[in-house]
């Protein structure tokens, strides 16, 4: 067996020379991570603008001639799909996964750098295909982000000519890109850890990304299957999902297909997808809290086990998205039970974050503010999840603004707060410059409070019974006029929060050139990415010698140590009292 220390080979031989190999066709995980990140943020801004236009329509119906009902549905669909898949999944796994995995486990790069590069370019292709659907005849699809058949491919829904085809193709391409990336992340975590880096010494960020990647590898095929079969139904006239039906006075060729089958397949992907987004966020937030509270993470083992438990459970809860589609009552009981069960490991994580903060030396830096903001928002969103997980409560609330409020809190705002925190935290390592603290604090407070002004009122609208997905709620008897006032308020808050993000963009661009020069380890953190010989890390990350790991990633405020943190690659612990001696 050729036991090649290939990592060292890479360091010697593959240093890129030209601009093109260094920044464009790069195989360096750090460059690929930034490429993923910038693409995801760019496409996310498109989705943000779309949501602003949706809110304009809802707040001021019939005031904007360019927002036709068709356009409104196209905005809704593209906003949802872009945010969930092309922004969150890509930024958390493609962006942060790529950047942090090799640095945190002490590797020189991903195990398959070429595949990694390919993964980014295929992802970019999927984004281009998706964006192209705005410009084809008929425009992008307006089927709603869940793309339920039969309406998704029937005339009458916007974008059934080309939009839906491009959407399905783009999803397929994205899944190919994700699979290439995912194989890399899993193999790298399992194979390329440096000496002394046992699995249980990995920072929780890596754990979160690792488990989420496994979920993604198993769950994305379900989306692939449903997208492919719907594509065939649409293009070749098969009847996987399409029942016999009459459309605009004509009998269609389809017969016998089952729309419910699509829903099963879609949500078999869709629910794990929530955790594909949430688990990396959980991991990152654990590290942010521990570093900025100068305290070891409370219950590290429990945190790892909870990640695993959530991963397993996430595959047996999908039908809670389908209560109103109808099912055997026992199934409803089963899925309600598993859904509520998932609250147990999730609550363990929340308790452990709070207990890590308890009596910690809390530094209210910008990343810490975002991390604490996440805990609030996630608890809020999680509690309304308990409502919706119960069949009897879900039935009246389903398809109302309560659901919109719930899932935006729990899987929209929460992971995005973590992403902001993570960008403020790791920006100094990525660029060698600090982000501006004052601008960052303004950005946090305005975003955090602003999102509450958007999503908390939506719960009230939902309890009033206002349906989601409607173009306009006018002249409906049971909706009081005051609900429209609330809608105006929500719209103003949403536009405000969207505009506030300019602060963030300005901060990014300005700090890149004129930010304070960053210390190699500005947050005095223990994990390996802060111990690189250069900042930003050079190609190959570690200079001639790989780091050796002697301890876990959470040695903060160790009694007796001369500093309040001991890096993972520090052998003797700097005078820390020997803890093995304790009972």
């Amino acid at each position, binding site marked *: 067996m050729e*036991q*090649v220390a290939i990592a060292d080979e890479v360091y010697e031989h593959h240093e890129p020379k030209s601009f093109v190999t260094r920044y464009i066709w790069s195989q360096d995980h750090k460059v690929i991570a930034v490429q993923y990140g910038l693409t995801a943020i760019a496409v996310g801004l498109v989705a943000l603008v779309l949501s602003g236009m949706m809110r304009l329509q809802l707040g001021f119906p019939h005031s904007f001639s360019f927002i036709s009902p068709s356009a409104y549905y196209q905005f809704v669909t593209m906003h949802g799909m872009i945010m969930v898949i092309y922004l969150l999944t890509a930024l958390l796994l493609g962006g942060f996964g790529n950047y942090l995995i090799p640095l945190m486990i002490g590797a020189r790069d991903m195990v398959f750098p070429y595949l990694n590069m390919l993964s980014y370019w295929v992802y970019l292709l999927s984004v281009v295909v998706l964006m192209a659907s705005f410009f084809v005849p008929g425009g992008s699809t307006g089927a709603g982000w869940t793309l339920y058949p039969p309406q998704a491919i029937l005339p009458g829904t916007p974008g059934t000519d080309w939009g839906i085809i491009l959407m399905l193709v783009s999803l397929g391409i994205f899944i190919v890109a994700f699979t290439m990336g995912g194989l890399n992340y*899993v*193999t790298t975590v399992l194979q390329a850890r440096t000496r002394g880096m046992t*699995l249980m010494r990995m920072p929780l960020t890596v754990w979160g990304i690792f488990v989420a990647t496994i979920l993604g590898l198993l769950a994305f095929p379900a989306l692939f299957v449903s997208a492919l079969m719907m594509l065939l139904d649409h293009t070749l006239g098969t009847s996987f999902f399409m029942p016999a039906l009459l459309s605009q006075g004509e009998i269609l060729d389809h017969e016998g297909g089952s729309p419910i089958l699509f829903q099963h397949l879609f949500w078999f992907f869709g629910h794990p997808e929530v955790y594909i987004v949430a688990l990396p966020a959980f991991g990152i937030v654990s590290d942010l809290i521990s570093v900025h509270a100068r305290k070891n993470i409370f219950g*590290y083992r429990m945190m790892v086990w909870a990640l695993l438990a959530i991963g*397993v459970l996430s595959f047996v809860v999908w039908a809670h998205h389908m209560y109103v589609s109808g099912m055997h009552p026992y199934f409803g009981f089963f899925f309600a039970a598993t859904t509520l069960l998932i609250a147990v490991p999730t609550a363990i994580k929340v308790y452990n974050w709070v207990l890590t903060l308890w009596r910690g030396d809390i530094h209210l830096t910008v990343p810490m503010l975002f991390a604490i903001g996440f805990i609030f928002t996630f608890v809020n969103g999680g509690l309304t999840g308990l409502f919706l997980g119960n069949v009897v409560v879900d039935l009246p609330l389903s398809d109302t603004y309560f659901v919109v409020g719930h899932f935006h809190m729990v899987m929209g705002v929460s992971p995005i707060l973590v992403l902001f925190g993570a960008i403020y935290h790791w920006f100094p390592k990525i660029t060698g410059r600090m982000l501006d603290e004052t601008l960052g604090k303004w950005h946090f407070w305005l975003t955090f409070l602003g999102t509450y002004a958007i999503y908390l009122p939506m719960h009230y609208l939902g309890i009033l019974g206002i349906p989601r997905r409607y173009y306009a709620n006018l002249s409906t008897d049971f909706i009081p006029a005051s609900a429209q006032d609330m809608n105006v308020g929500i719209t103003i808050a949403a536009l405000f929060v969207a505009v506030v993000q300019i602060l963030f963009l300005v901060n990014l661009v300005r700090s890149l050139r004129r930010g304070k020069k960053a210390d190699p380890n500005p947050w005095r953190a223990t994990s390996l990415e802060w111990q690189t010989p250069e900042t930003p890390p050079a190609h190959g990350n570690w200079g001639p010698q790989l780091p050796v790991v002697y301890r876990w990633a959470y040695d903060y405020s160790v009694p007796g140590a001369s500093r309040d943190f001991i890096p993972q690659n520090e052998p003797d612990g700097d005078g820390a009292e020997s*803890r093995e001696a304790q009972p």
Partner: protein
Amino acid sequence: MNIIVLFMVSVMAIFVWWMILQRVTAKPWLEQGVAIDPREATATGYSSYVAGKLALWVFMVVITSLFLLFVTAYHMRMHLGDWHPLPDPGALWFNTALLAAASIALQVARRGIKQRRASLVRAGYLGGGILALAFLAAQLWVWQQLGEAGYRVAGNPANSFFYLLTGLHGAHLLGGLLVWSVGAVRLLGGAPLGSLRLNVESCSVYWHYLLLLWLGLFALLLHT
């Protein structure tokens, strides 16, 4: 959905069990130093051979998940009333034999690597690829025959699933042939046997896997 849930839960169970073997019960805050696990003590860098094999196995789990989801959909769609099974084309038995022969040929190549016999590697490796190509051609021929006999893709869900499953299986074999062609070029270019080891072994494992997958799909098609 039972099938796929069972699969997912067993994959996750295996994963968790494996995690337990990896000492997820360790208490990292009590342990300092490097060699807390004797297996870890000698590890420097990693082997691209092991990494490649691991990635292949993970990839095969992903493909299994993909096909089991199709089988689940097949199963659910089958019971909806308008299902008229295809006649079982006898030619598929011949195609199965072709694929099995391809698999055997690659096993021969693998043995050749182990025994350092270049002629065995060459015959087995090239033979395995060509037999796989023949399998694909034969599958296309079956498609054509069925099409001429009036079994259109959109005619009946049974037909749709037949074309879909055989097509996807073929697409995965085509992907394998892409990797195979890289190895074949290097083999014909006279690359040393040792450098081909990962490629030959991966191809043989993948071919066996696709044979197994095909046997499963074939059994499903015969059975229903």
